[in-house]
């Protein structure tokens, strides 16, 4: 495992499976009522959130605390950032405080990479969403959820057919998912109105469709994306009603999927817009489970990034422990 998790593309198939397998053990311990594990005792994890987030921040906080790390929450609102402090000075401050890992969410694509690539900070960097670029832990928790339902919780996703629907243009979740699902061997189809595909999407390792019905037939899972109104600076579709009719998931469309198929959504949902309340609350929906799995997956990521000897730290060579 590398020192940072910035992009799904950083993960080889083996590393991705290591995260998923580790998450599985974390979740199994939680089910056996082990609430607290000692692996990160004495380590400090900073949640650096420049953008509003509820579930991701809480999920990382819960994950770090269950591993006994100390957690410092930093949100841009009410901090020096609102007084005009730069990312660099914020990073230098965190460095001076001795952060071991920084979980960063930022509205600018590439912010996490910037933090990791400079010498501002020694800590491991976890990208918790940068602009419209990537959100790798979301992709990992989606892959974990898919694997649990479609492959008995083991191995990869070879041959599984997954359709991702909606606002591809503004979604960092979709980019991370396409990359990771391809690494794990799944076949991905993206379905959206032409206006909501980014330039260059034809070079992505996936199929593209403008017709949702056709893109749902016999699929093993469908992942709905939130229509990100806050990032929309122009009108991408005529009306919400039309979007909902052409690209919203309702019970009729769910019936097109394979019988064992699951319905996913990274949240927060716009009920009645991209997904009907009936589908969101149906037994095909694993949306609430995704949140639970998110904590296990983030525990796995933090454990693998911080739990062992860091590459930067010389010290013991690893030889001469108990075995040798």
């Amino acid at each position, binding site marked *: 495992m590398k020192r940072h998790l910035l992009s799904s593309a950083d993960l080889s198939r083996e590393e991705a499976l*290591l995260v998923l397998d580790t998450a599985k053990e974390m979740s*199994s311990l939680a089910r056996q009522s082990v609430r607290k594990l000692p692996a990160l005792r004495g380590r400090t994890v900073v949640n650096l959130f420049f953008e509003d987030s509820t579930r991701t921040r809480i999920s990382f906080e819960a994950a770090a605390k269950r591993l006994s790390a100390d957690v410092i929450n930093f949100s841009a609102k009410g901090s020096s950032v609102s007084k005009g402090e730069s990312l660099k000075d914020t990073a230098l401050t965190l460095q001076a405080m001795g952060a071991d890992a920084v979980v960063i969410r930022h509205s600018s694509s590439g912010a996490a990479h910037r933090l990791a690539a400079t010498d501002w900070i020694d800590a491991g960097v976890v990208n918790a969403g940068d602009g419209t670029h990537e959100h790798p832990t979301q992709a990992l928790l989606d892959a974990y959820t898919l694997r649990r339902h479609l492959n008995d919780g083991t191995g990869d996703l070879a041959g599984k057919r997954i359709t991702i629907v909606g606002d591809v243009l503004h979604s960092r979740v979709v980019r991370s998912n396409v990359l990771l699902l391809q690494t794990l061997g799944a076949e991905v189809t993206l379905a959206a109105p032409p206006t909501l595909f980014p330039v260059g999407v034809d070079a992505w390792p996936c199929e593209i469709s403008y017709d949702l019905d056709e893109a749902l037939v016999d699929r093993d899972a469908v992942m709905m994306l939130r229509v990100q109104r806050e990032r929309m600076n122009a009108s991408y579709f005529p009306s919400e009603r039309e979007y909902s009719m052409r690209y919203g998931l309702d019970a009729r469309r769910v019936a097109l999927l394979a019988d064992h198929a699951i319905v996913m959504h990274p949240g927060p949902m716009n009920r009645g817009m991209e997904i009907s309340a009936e589908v969101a609350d149906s037994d095909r929906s694993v949306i609430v489970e995704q949140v639970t799995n998110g904590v296990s997956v983030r525990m796995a990521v933090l454990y693998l990034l911080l739990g062992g000897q860091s590459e930067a730290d010389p010290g013991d060579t690893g030889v001469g*422990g*108990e*075995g040798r």
Partner: protein
Amino acid sequence: MSTSEPVATPEGHVVLDAEDMRRVLTRISHEIVEKSRGAQDLLLLGIPTRGVDLARRIGERIEQIEGVPVPVGSIDPTMYRDDLRRRPPRALQPTTIPATGIDDRIVVLVDDVLFSGRTVRAALDALNEFGRPRAVRLAVLIDRGHRDLPIRADHVGRNVTTNPEDVVSVSVAAVDGADSVVVTAGMPAPARVEEGTR
């Protein structure tokens, strides 16, 4: 100890072959029952990877002897190790505590090789998370000496004299395809070293 003369092979000394291992596990099973005066409150927890299979086999043997099913599980001490920070991150192994729970049970930890004792110490810490056993005992297939901590086994398959740098490789049928214990002198070959020596 009833140590038979080690057989030298190019790969090292065979300390136990499959037949020896079967007999040793049978003896350990009898010892556990004798010491606990029956199998009533027994619970076996194997330390992954090979301890889990050894625990399962001892559990089956005890059931044959006493006619009482013995719950068997596994406990992964990885996150409780004192050398966690000194090595690259390790993959976690399954922890499965039987539904009976460990409270007021006689828990027998089962591992393949007892060396420094640090793994057992970590397993004792991990055990704390799940409750308070009436007693905790330790059964190991091989005790190779060189303890770093004040820990000893209650049930030992075979005491083997080793140098600290020797490698004890335990193979079990369920994981490796065959049962054997081999001691190799000097620096370990990279393959299959980790489990036998932890």
